[in-house]
């Protein structure tokens, strides 16, 4: 279970998070929606400790994330439970595609023989809709959507318990989006993983989510089961779902 309590984060004078409260139950799929630049990616990074929250509490299964010292073995063990797809892919451009996907399997505590690691990588690539012949290419040789999917394959390669997806379907065609949505659903249902997904794509939200939370103005504006999203009674959520320019959310921010 992941809990955020009153999390604040500013960059210089700019307040991004102003008291985020959020709970993600184990084995559930939480989707975070919200306008561009509201701090969704920052929220994920606070949980992973990549960004330090100014104040507030972030716990994973009761363990205080902010207490884990950078580079300590507890933190490594903590991070070993996570997989993360970055918004920009964040593939290592000095490594080939399969070495990216198998990064964790090639070193450290999960180290496997090279052949086996490669096979797993190719299998994961297949699951995100990529053929084995991309395995030996370099990230720079791939299209944006392909890079995204390689990033996704890397995030799930070591079968983590907790997976964060930052805009998994942005830049993909509708069919591929469908494939990815199904994959995420599968990972949660079959592997029992806890997932936290950021997306702008309402089709994705309905396909992936157990619960939905909307971030607005640095706080969680609304949260609840996906089935209640349409009848939330919250004008912000309603405007976001309908994508209307009319409503309480300012269109210039």
């Amino acid at each position: 279970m992941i809990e955020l309590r009153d999390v604040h984060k500013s960059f210089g004078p700019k307040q991004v998070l102003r008291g985020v409260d959020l709970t993600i139950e184990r084995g559930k799929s939480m989707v975070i929606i919200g306008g561009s630049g509201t701090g969704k990616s920052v929220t994920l990074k606070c949980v992973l400790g990549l960004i330090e929250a100014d104040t507030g509490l972030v716990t994973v299964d009761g363990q205080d994330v902010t207490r884990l010292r950078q580079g300590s073995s507890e933190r490594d063990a903590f991070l070993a439970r996570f997989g993360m797809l970055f918004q920009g892919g964040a593939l290592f451009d000095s490594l080939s595609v399969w070495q990216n996907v198998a990064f964790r399997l090639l070193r450290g505590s999960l180290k496997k023989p090279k052949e086996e690691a490669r096979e797993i990588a190719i299998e994961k690539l297949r699951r995100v809709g990529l053929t084995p012949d991309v395995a030996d290419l370099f990230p720079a040789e791939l299209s944006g959507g392909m890079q995204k999917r390689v990033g996704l394959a890397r995030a799930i390669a070591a079968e983590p318990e907790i997976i964060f997806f930052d805009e998994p379907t942005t830049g993909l065609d509708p069919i591929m989006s469908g494939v990815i949505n199904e994959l995420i659903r599968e990972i949660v249902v079959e592997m029992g993983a806890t997932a936290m997904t950021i997306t702008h794509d309402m089709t994705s939200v309905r396909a992936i989510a157990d619960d939905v939370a909307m971030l607005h103005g640095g706080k969680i504006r609304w949260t609840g089961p996906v089935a209640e999203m349409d009848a939330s009674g919250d004008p912000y959520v309603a405007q976001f779902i309908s994508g209307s320019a009319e409503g309480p959310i300012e269109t210039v921010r």
Partner: protein
Amino acid sequence: MSLLAAIGRVVLGFLAAIGRVALFAFETVSHLFRPPYYPREVAHALLQIGYFSLPVVGLTTIFTGGALALQIYAGGARFSAEAVVPQIVAIGMVRELGPVLVGLMIAARVTSSIAAEIATMKVTEQIDALVTLSTNPMKYLTLPRVLAATLVMPVLVAVGNIIGIMGGYLVGVNRLGFNAGTYLRNTIDFLEPSDIATSLAKGAVFGFLAALMGCYFGMRSGRGAQGVGRATKSAVVAASVLILAANFLLTELFFAA
């Protein structure tokens, strides 16, 4: 008052920067004693920093050695030129010019590429990705580069010294009409083993500084292409200045008896 405050701020900022660099250096070295290690990264860095720098090192030192020989000859050492030119070329190259020139070339070639690479990784979230994949960037990126540079720089300096002396030899024998055998004998007779040892020690220190600055500024890069550019520039400037300052201190330490 505001002037004093401004000066105070600059001084404090400078001291804080020194503290940060020192901490960074300390952390880097501490990873030498804490596994896991990444030998493949070290090997890769050795190749990049050492082997691929050889042409640059050779070209810089051969011309400098040659110019040095001409200059000493022109500068009034004509009477016993045949003895003085090889001696001063050897001493000048091995004690000062070899390590400094190679150090500065490494700052230009290696520090810049390390800083740009790491800064780009930082900007494109690859460093964050490393962390989420349970890999410490200090162990995976910084230590291999710093270690490789420290180990390989003495070799580069040795090569630079030899090629620099060869530059002097070529000029001496072909342009100034010295006897080849005498030139070599004078060079070898005059060089002390301690000269060579200090030369290589300087190399190791400069290699450490060059790679450390590349990693430090790369890791602290700001956002965007501008951040990468600024990180690279600062790294090269800092490495060059530190190398020259360290050279002065080491010369003081080794030779000012």
